[in-house]
Structures are given as structure tokens and as C-alpha cells.
């Protein structure tokens, strides 16, 4: 009963002090979703999922950021940096890898309405930091390289992504991309994939 009374009192108080709705204070107006992007430079950030650069299985997750400059209506170029993390285990190893993926990108793009569709080719390298721990090694009191090894490698890499960008409001865009990727590990060409979902800013 007491609780009910308190709830009623709070609701009444809220209504009593609620500001009157005025046209100037509306959250949504006619131009809320107007596209205000006039520049050619676009920054974006995204969440990333990808096949790990140097592991045969699993899915690496991470973050991605990029800058793209549109030149004309068909071409764009830019640069991207991605960080991905994965931790996987086998019978004998617990492996953690962190990928730093650096790309120079070039795109063929087509704008339509609020959006644009692009085919983006990225060339660069995957810098992979690997930390391996021998499974059960700590319980067996292993130490040194018998317990843990670390390595860093740079793998030539490329990816081809379809990029969909949609102007949502003002300078803000929603961007989704994905496609196949390749890298060269120990002289062998390895296939993979990558996908991103993020937000862009194009003033």
C-alpha cells in the first residue's frame, strides 16, 4: 500500500513539473534526417569480425577505423586500420593472437539517394602478435619457452569488400562492409573473410 502511494505521488509530481511541449523543443523536426554532408572526406569507426590471420579456425573480433576521400563520383581512396583479437585452444596450446591490419584502400563507388555502394580493394599487411601457452603447463610447473612463446609477424594481406554506406542524419552514416580476404603465412596463401558494421562521419 505504501509503495503504491509513493508511485502515485511520483507520477503526479512528474506530470506537475513536465515542461509544456513547444514547437522549438521538439526532438524530431522536418530536417532531422536531412543529409548535411557536403565534403568529400569521411571518417568511420566500426566493429569488426574476421577470420584470424594466422589460425585455421575461430573468429577474431575487434575494432576498425578508416578515412576515405571521395574523388569524383566513381572513385574513392583511403586508409584503414583494424585491430582484431582471438583466443583459441587446442589439446596442447592456448593461443592468443592480436592482428593489426593496415590497409591502403581504393574503391569503385556508386551513389544512389542517401546511400552509396562501393567495391573496396585493400592492400597492406597484417601485423600479428601471437602468445602461446602450453595447455596444462602451469599445473606441471613448466617455465620459460616450454610454457609460453611469443612471436610477431607481418603478413602481406589484401581484402576485397563490398561497402554499403547510408546517410542517416546530418553528417552521420551507417556503414556495413564485408568480403573475402587473403594473407600470406609462411609462404602459403590463406583465404579468409572480414565484415564490419559501424558509423561514419562525413561533414
Amino acid at each position: 500500500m505504501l509503495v503504491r502511494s509513493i508511485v502515485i505521488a511520483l507520477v503526479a509530481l512528474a506530470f506537475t513539473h513536465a515542461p509544456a511541449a513547444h514547437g522549438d523543443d521538439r526532438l524530431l523536426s522536418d530536417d532531422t534526417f536531412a543529409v548535411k554532408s557536403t565534403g568529400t572526406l569521411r571518417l568511420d569507426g566500426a566493429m569488426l569480425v574476421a577470420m584470424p590471420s594466422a589460425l585455421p579456425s575461430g573468429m577474431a573480433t575487434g575494432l576498425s577505423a578508416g578515412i576515405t576521400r571521395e574523388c569524383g563520383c566513381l572513385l574513392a581512396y583511403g586508409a584503414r586500420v583494424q585491430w582484431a583479437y582471438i583466443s583459441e585452444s587446442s589439446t596442447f596450446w592456448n593461443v592468443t593472437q592480436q592482428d593489426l591490419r593496415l590497409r591502403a584502400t581504393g574503391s569503385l563507388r556508386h551513389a544512389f539517394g542517401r546511400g552509396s555502394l562501393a567495391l573496396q580493394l585493400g592492400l597492406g599487411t597484417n601485423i600479428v602478435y601471437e602468445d602461446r601457452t602450453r595447455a596444462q603447463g602451469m599445473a606441471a610447473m613448466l617455465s620459460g619457452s616450454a610454457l609460453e612463446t611469443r612471436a610477431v609477424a607481418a603478413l602481406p594481406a589484401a581484402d576485397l569488400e563490398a561497402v554499403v554506406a547510408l546517410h542517416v542524419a546530418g553528417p552521420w552514416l551507417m556503414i556495413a562492409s564485408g568480403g573475402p580476404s587473403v594473407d600470406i603465412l609462411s609462404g602459403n596463401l590463406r583465404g579468409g573473410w572480414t565484415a564490419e558494421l559501424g558509423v561514419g562521419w562525413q561533414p
Partner: protein
Amino acid sequence: MKYLCALALAGCGNLQGFGGPVPPLTTYTVQITGQPSAPLAHPQIALVWGMQWLTEALCILPPENQQAAAVLSAGCRDPFGFVPLRVDANVPTDLVSPTTVDVYTLPTADVMVGDLTARVAYASFVLYDDRNDDGLLALARPNRLGVPTAGPGSETGPTDQTDLVYGASFVTMTAPDQRVGYREGAFIQSAFYPRAGCGDPPPAFSVLAASGFSPFAAVQATLAGTLPQEDDPSQCVQAAPADQPITVPVQPPANVKEVACTENNADSSVRYREPPADTPDFTNRVYACVHLPSFDGTTSSVIELIVSGRTDDACVGITHYVLSGCREDPNCGTPDWDVAPPSWWPC
């Protein structure tokens, strides 16, 4: 240098992923002493983890009669002997030079005794002739009569043994031994292959040695509610695997065959069976009629038929028949069977 290499955007570095050589968790050195009387076809050394096992009461009480003594002599294993549960590494040996045995996995939870904060496992290195050349030491079980291989009362595993054991570093607690120890957390002395009078096993893998204790000391200690003291504490060893090789003396197979005999029941409990209508195959077996054993000096009114294994069995064991009762208790309130004595019933 590695970071510079990485920054050079070239394919370099040495990522291993799940590949590459796997370092062993520990390595033991095993030396065989002596030579078998006949050449071995495929001599191998196996690392065998032991189980916690208690013999059944009938095997440690005085026999009721001469026939019972014969059955117990043929059907009871050494109550202080090492009882295997799981075979880990199997490595070929030339019987002459020291053999290196790499261990790649920890003992599984079922061979460790204790809780998560303090548990220990013990193992024995077993020398055997891998006569079927499958690379593995097979563990056999007693050949009891009328045992189903599936369902209630079943016992799994082969009753015949192709491999022939020629020695072990840890055969019985009543003889000097060298054993593999693996300890996690603290160490609490227990009746699991006890070594009272010796130091605690060091954490992780180790080599442990002890002089053993006499059966008389074991009985006295049990009556006193304590653990039997090792006969000669000066023989106690607690060492790291790299510091202490393990010696396996060659012995006649008949002396050490039980090292490859596992058990289905570890808690001294007996599985009783309903006598079949037809005469069981008593070939090469001895049998006797005895009262149910008790430790309080009273004589049970229940008579059971005990049957030994065959003389040529790989592992010894006893089959228990009662006319009325349940699988785990002949005195259960609601018997699973209650039958009239069959025509062959000797009791």
C-alpha cells in the same frame, strides 16, 4: 628486431598457431635392470596411473575352511598391490640403455585422489612385451562367472591379456618402490598408497621412492587407525623427474602380472550373483561354500558360493553366488532374486 621486421610490412616472423613441436609436461628416465629369460618381441615401457582400491573383506579375513583357503589363494590379489586404472605413455625400449618417457598430459581427474585443493596421483612404470604389437598396454579384468558386459552388474574390459608384464617400478606397497607422483595443491596424507614416514610429494610431477612396509605393520596400523610406517625412512626419495631416474627390475611375469589387472569395483564392495539354472563352467576353477564375512566376530546365516577364476586367467578374482539377495547386498530387504537351490548347488 621482430618489431622492426613487422613494421617492414614483409612476410616475416615465426607464428606457430597450434602447430610446431609440443614440449612435454615432464620427462622421465627409466632404466631397466636385468634381462628377461627369453627375448621380448616388442619391449615397451608404459606409464600407468593407479587407482584407489580396497580388497573385499573375504580376502583379508582368515579362511573359513580348507576349500575356502584354496579359493582365496587362487582368487584374491595382493591387497597391498598397485592397481592400475589408466595407461598413459607407451614407449619402446631396448632394455639396455636408459629410456626417455615424455609425458604430454596431466593425469585425469579420475586417477587423482583428494579434492581440488589437495589431490595426488601415483603411477608405475611398467615393462611389458607388447605381443600384439598395438603399441599399447592393455589392462585386463578378472574373469568372473556369468558377468554381463552391459547393463546392471556389468564389468567392462577384456578378461584375457595379450601383453605380458615383465616388471614395474611400483608393484606393491610391501616392497621397495619407485613411483611417479603428481600433486596438485596441498598434500594430505591418506590411505591412497600411503608413504607414512616419508616427506610430502613435491608439487607437480615427481619421482617418489620408499622402502615399503610389512603386511604385519599394515594390519597393526589399521587396527590402530593409523597409516603404516615405512620400514626404512632413509630410502624415502622425493625428487624432480630430471634429477632421479627410475629403475624397473625385470621379474618373472607371474610375479608382476597383476600390475596390468584393473578392477571394476574400487570400494571393496562385492557384486553378488544369482546362481544360474545350469551348472556353471567350473573348469580350472575352485569353489567353496562359506558364510558371509563379517568383522565383528559373528557368523552370518547366509551361505554363499565363492568361485575362483581359472588357473590360466590373466587376472585373479572371485565370483559370489547367493540363493537370495540383491546385487550389492545378500541381506537386502526386498531381494532381487530368491531361488531354490539348483541341482548343481554344492552348498
